[in-house]
């Protein structure tokens, strides 16, 4: 449901929503402009149905939580529904629902986003509401404290009840040794329990400003009418100084790490591994597009190298794959996963995957694999406009992590330009044991 933390770190599926028409450089053909107060606006036109997705992205996320207050970005996201100077708690949602609108919000490491999908004639209303809470949030303990309990329940539901999520949390904490990506988006339970109304207001005042936001509107609109509405509502919100996003940076990674979680709640073992990797904006960025191709050919689906070798041919695993998401302000990660066949061991899957990685590093990928992976990624892009909110999500995530509209539009072309040599070079640069964490999820013997 809404107001959830997006805890996903990397997911190849996201890339399938990045997109373009076949053969053409353009993906969404958006129009973009900037209001006088510095707020960037992007418009994607689609006249399929008389509906619109209105989505605002703040360039602040969990990685900007102050030390000791993990979870505050996500908690504030919940609290943004708790009223303004002129709107009672919950009224935002009621106003949207009464008009047939669906709304939601999510927090990630690098951004916080709010959206509504409504009939197009209600765009004016949702913009007015969103602009209102950008400037006029009003909170009191009476609504904040019960919501803190809600977030603790959310954490129990997502993480504390689920050993697989607990292991993923522990692996991220081990992968990043200094950078705040090591902390969970939702926060540690003991720190969530100490968050206050004042903490939320301070974070809001520090980061929520039009000049730190990107508005993306996708649907049955024109750039002209979006501009007029945006100037009317958001244009009335004054720009404010917003601090630079200065985060602790990673030291060199020198030693492979290993995390093992045994639980009586686990019967099916599994193995996973994360490597620190460059993103589109950090580290050795020249490898980012090649890494997207590499993830696809290694682990993108049933014809991928890992699935074919581990699942189809060697029958050591029931599932195996790889993933990578390049949209991150700081260092990203490249991930692998696999589960053994019935009665098998997670360690056997790990050994088989390692053999495959070693083979890749020694012999390289093949030209055929690279061509196929590129064409699959580009075809996914060609389908990305077949969605109301998908374009807004793709564009917003890119712009909130240092990318530009031009980057999004050029994505298929840049994927097309990736060479076999680039893929092999990227693999050798990233798949280094000293930059990795291995994770094993294992049954705990009961007696």
């Amino acid at each position: 449901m809404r107001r959830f933390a997006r805890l996903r770190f990397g997911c190849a599926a996201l890339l399938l929503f990045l997109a373009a028409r076949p053969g053409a450089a353009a993906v969404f053909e958006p129009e973009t402009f900037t209001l006088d107060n510095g707020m960037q606006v992007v418009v994607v036109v689609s006249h399929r149905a008389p509906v619109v997705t209105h989505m605002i992205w703040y360039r602040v996320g969990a990685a900007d939580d102050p030390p000791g207050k993990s979870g505050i970005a996500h908690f504030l996201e919940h609290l943004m529904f708790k009223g303004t100077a002129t709107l009672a708690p919950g009224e935002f949602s009621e106003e949207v629902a009464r008009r047939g609108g669906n709304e939601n919000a999510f927090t990630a490491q690098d951004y916080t986003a709010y959206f509504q999908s409504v009939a197009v004639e209600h765009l004016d209303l949702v913009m007015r509401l969103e602009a209102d809470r950008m400037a006029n949030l009003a909170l009191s303990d009476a609504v904040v404290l019960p919501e803190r309990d809600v977030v603790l329940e959310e954490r129990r539901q997502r993480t504390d009840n689920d050993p697989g999520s607990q292991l993923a949390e522990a692996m991220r904490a081990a992968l990043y040794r200094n950078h705040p990506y090591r902390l969970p988006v939702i926060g540690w339970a003991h720190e969530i329990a100490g968050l206050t109304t004042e903490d939320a207001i301070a974070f809001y005042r520090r980061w929520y400003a039009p000049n730190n936001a990107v508005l993306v509107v996708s649907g049955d609109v024109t750039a002209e009418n979006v501009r007029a509405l945006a100037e009317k509502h958001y244009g009335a919100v004054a720009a404010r100084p917003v601090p630079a996003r200065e985060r602790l940076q990673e030291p060199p990674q020198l030693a492979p790490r290993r995390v093992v979680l045994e639980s009586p709640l686990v019967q099916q073992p599994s193995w996973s591994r994360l490597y620190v990797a460059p993103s589109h904006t950090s580290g050795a960025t020249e490898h980012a597009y090649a890494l997207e191709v590499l993830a696809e050919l290694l682990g993108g689906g049933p014809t991928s190298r890992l699935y074919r070798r581990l699942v189809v041919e060697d029958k050591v695993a029931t599932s195996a794959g790889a993933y990578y998401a390049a949209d991150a302000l700081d260092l990203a990660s490249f991930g692998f996963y696999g589960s053994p066949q019935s009665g098998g061991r997670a360690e056997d899957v790990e050994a088989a995957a390692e053999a495959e990685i070693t083979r890749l590093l020694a012999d390289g990928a093949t030209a055929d694999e690279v061509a196929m992976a590129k064409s699959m990624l580009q075809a996914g892009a060609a389908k990305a406009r077949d969605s109301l909110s998908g374009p807004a999500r793709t564009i917003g995530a890119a712009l909130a992590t240092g990318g530009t509209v031009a980057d999004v539009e050029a994505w298929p072309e840049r994927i097309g330009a990736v060479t076999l040599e680039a893929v092999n070079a990227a693999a050798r640069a990233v798949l280094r044991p000293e930059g990795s964490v291995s994770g094993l999820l294992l049954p705990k013997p009961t007696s």
Partner: protein
Amino acid sequence: MGAAVRALALTAGLLTPLFATAPPAFAVEIQRVVGASGVAAWLVEDHGNPIVSVAIGFHGGAALDPAGKAGLAEMVSVLLDEGAGDLDSQAFQRRLAELAIELGFDAGMDEFSGTLRTLSDRRDDAFDLLRLALTAPRFDQDAVDRLRGQLQARLVAQADDPGDIAGRVWWRTSFPDHPYGRPAEGTVASLGAIAPDDLRGFVARRFARDNLVVGVVGDITAAELRPLLDRTFGALPAAAAPAALPEAAPEAAGAVVVVPKGVPQSVVLFGHQGVKRDDPDFYAAYVVNHVLGGGGFSSRLTHEVRETRGLAYSIATWLNTLDRVGLVQGQVATQNARVAETLDLVRAEWRRMAEAGPTPEELADAKTYLTGSYPLRFSSTASTAGVLAAVQLEGFGIDYIARRNSYIEAVTLEDARRVARRLLDPARLTVVVVGEPEGVTATRSPPPDDGT
């Protein structure tokens, strides 16, 4: 994390079936296209993007799985694209990948569905792969064993997930002697008992022209679609095998079942008999459920349980309209110490709604939401195709989508009150709690484990 998200997504799907026109003039122009073979499809042309989506459905799903072979329909659904015609598993998958064609199948309790999405310049190839999957699946032993292993591994991985346990136990408790009480995904043992010939038998019995619905949306004209319908579906047998599924009624009304599990948060699943989809009171029940627990942040239960008291991240109720029984169900998760308090609130709200129904304002708001949100279901070719197939599976006419909102708008306050009284009875709720709940007294033991 994944499980929680999935459960919520499932709930949303059940809550928002099919609705019609919005306050602004909104129309979907649907053509009925019939091939020479008699195969018919509903088509919505949309040439805005070079994409075609297809949704198909056959009546009859997992509830028809033979005794001891639960999971048969599910296994068919994952194996149809694992080799067909001259193409073995890897060759078929490679063909899909090379052409970037998305093909998938899904087994529900009462229906078997499929989806296809392709760029329009290769739609002939896409329809051809769909034809192969439906008419010439190979079910090679190697692929069968591999996919069986994946399904079994998934079951094992879910065996200790509180939400999955709650679902399995609720259905087994409520339907001990009806196929609805068996998990559609089967058990490790029942999947192990399924042989390739069982899979072929399912295909032969269920995939037939008289049992098929087709929805097509996107960059294709009626004239282009017509021959594709014949080529794709014309070779299917004319008639499906007869299928008899008895009417069902939930048992164990009022029972409280506790499944001990060492987790900090209990998952609670509750429900009782509801209304079926063809019940004259369906729309009133739908609106009442929306106000009670279906309407996300605007529902009474969310307000009481989440907003006011911070007891849960999510609480939702939904109407589950199976072919042979209608149910109203709900789910909530809360820390073990507060399960009793949460259950008391659920029962109190259940009673309050039964006794007085929604207020005039709640009814009005529910109706404007349910009608106004309808166009959002038509925002992609795939979602629109899904609506076209689902409406046909329900047996509604081609004008249904245009009329749908009028059925919602016709619900009066008197209807809503009467149906709330008929629908809701807190004393009849069958409650399953998985966790270490405090202050909850079980009145019945969990049914015997099904072997997962």
